[in-house]
């Protein structure tokens, strides 16, 4: 091999080695970028999770029975203020006022049995309708329940409200109280809930169901009606004094 060709061969080897080195360097740089991206993603996801968990924790809530209400309604579909399978052929309507102490008694002693025997099984669905008769404060309370229903937590709101109810028309139904109930009920978007509960459409719905209760001839709360294949329209039940009577009415309407 001549001196010239040997030099050329060495030059080519050097160029090749430099090219390989550059490729290695580029690969190393790209892998470093990838690793940095992974690190950044882990940090961002961790921050998002910690933030959302701290928002939900509610561990410092002073509300009663948050866990009990959650367990009672666990696994039952909710659409608006309707609890149970939307396709259930019988509907039990409860016309109630969230400030009403008798409604609270029903919520604690009678309704849970009906939920367990008839609603959870899909035989009937339970439709809560506001009948605001105690005081003006019942209107924002009812609207807040409807707004919670728009986020799938209507019945959690109603049940939790009853379990933390204050004395009738005593002024306890404040924005702060309603917000605490909403958080305890698991309403996810409080800003949206606040907007919804003050909307004209929601307030109109409270008025409309109150007017409906009056049309049905109800004079107190809670009042019940049932509708199903065995009834022609809503059949008024008044205020049955036991879960058994409500279950019987559901069976007759089915």
């Amino acid at each position, binding site marked *: 091999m001549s001196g010239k060709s040997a030099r050329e061969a060495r030059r080519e080897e050097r160029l090749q080695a430099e090219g390989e080195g550059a*490729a*290695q360097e*580029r*690969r*190393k740089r*790209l*892998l470093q*970028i*990838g690793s940095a*991206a*992974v690190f950044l*993603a*882990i940090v*961002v*996801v961790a921050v*998002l*999770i910690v933030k*959302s*968990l701290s*928002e*939900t924790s509610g561990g410092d809530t002073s509300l009663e029975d948050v866990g009990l209400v959650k367990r009672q309604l666990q*696994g*039952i*579909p*909710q*659409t608006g203020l309707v609890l149970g399978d939307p396709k259930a052929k019988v509907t039990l309507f409860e016309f109630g006022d969230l400030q009403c102490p008798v409604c609270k008694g029903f919520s604690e002693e009678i309704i849970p049995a009906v939920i367990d025997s008839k609603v959870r099984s899909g035989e009937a669905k339970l439709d809560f309708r506001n009948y605001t008769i105690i005081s003006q404060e019942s209107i924002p309370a009812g609207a807040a329940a409807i707004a919670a229903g*728009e*986020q*799938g937590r209507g019945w959690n709101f109603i049940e939790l409200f009853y379990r933390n109810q204050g004395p009738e028309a005593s002024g306890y139904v404040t924005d702060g109280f309603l917000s605490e109930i909403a958080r305890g009920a*698991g309403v*996810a*978007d409080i800003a*949206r809930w606040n907007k919804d509960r003050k909307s004209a459409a929601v307030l109109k719905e409270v008025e409309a169901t109150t007017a409906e209760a009056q049309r049905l001839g109800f004079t107190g709360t809670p009042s019940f009606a049932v509708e199903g294949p065995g009834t022609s329209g809503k059949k008024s039940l008044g205020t049955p004094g036991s879960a058994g009577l409500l279950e019987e009415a559901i069976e007759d309407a089915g």
Partner: protein
Amino acid sequence: MKLPTEGTLRMIATFVAAFGIGVATYIAIADSGGGSPVCLAGGSGCETVANSSYSHLAGVNIAVFGIAGYALLLAASLLRGDLARMAGFGVSLVGFGYSVYLTQLELFKIEAICQWCVASAVLMTVLFGLNAMRMVGYVGRPA
């Protein structure tokens, strides 16, 4: 550990991304019709998740972002070179991270599981795995 060839990784990623587009499109169509995806195994988890505020981002159903993400991953799996490798890795990393966040929301905040969302999270996890292997094994190397 010996990695599969880049061609194999790209081929699997192509199928998974196409499947992901199908799942995300179903969720988006169900939502645009005013309803919610139907949980195949029954239950109301899909409805609860679809009705929650977390199902939309800036007023847009997150499934629409999912469709866009899967479409980018499909494109990245069809293309050669470092740009496609890095783009596939980056997009799948974002998708995987967001899926982890959403699954955590379903479990602890919404307290309902939507099977379609879980399916999408699984597909995104698989795509992240495939794209991570493609990047670690082949980035900076000839296409």
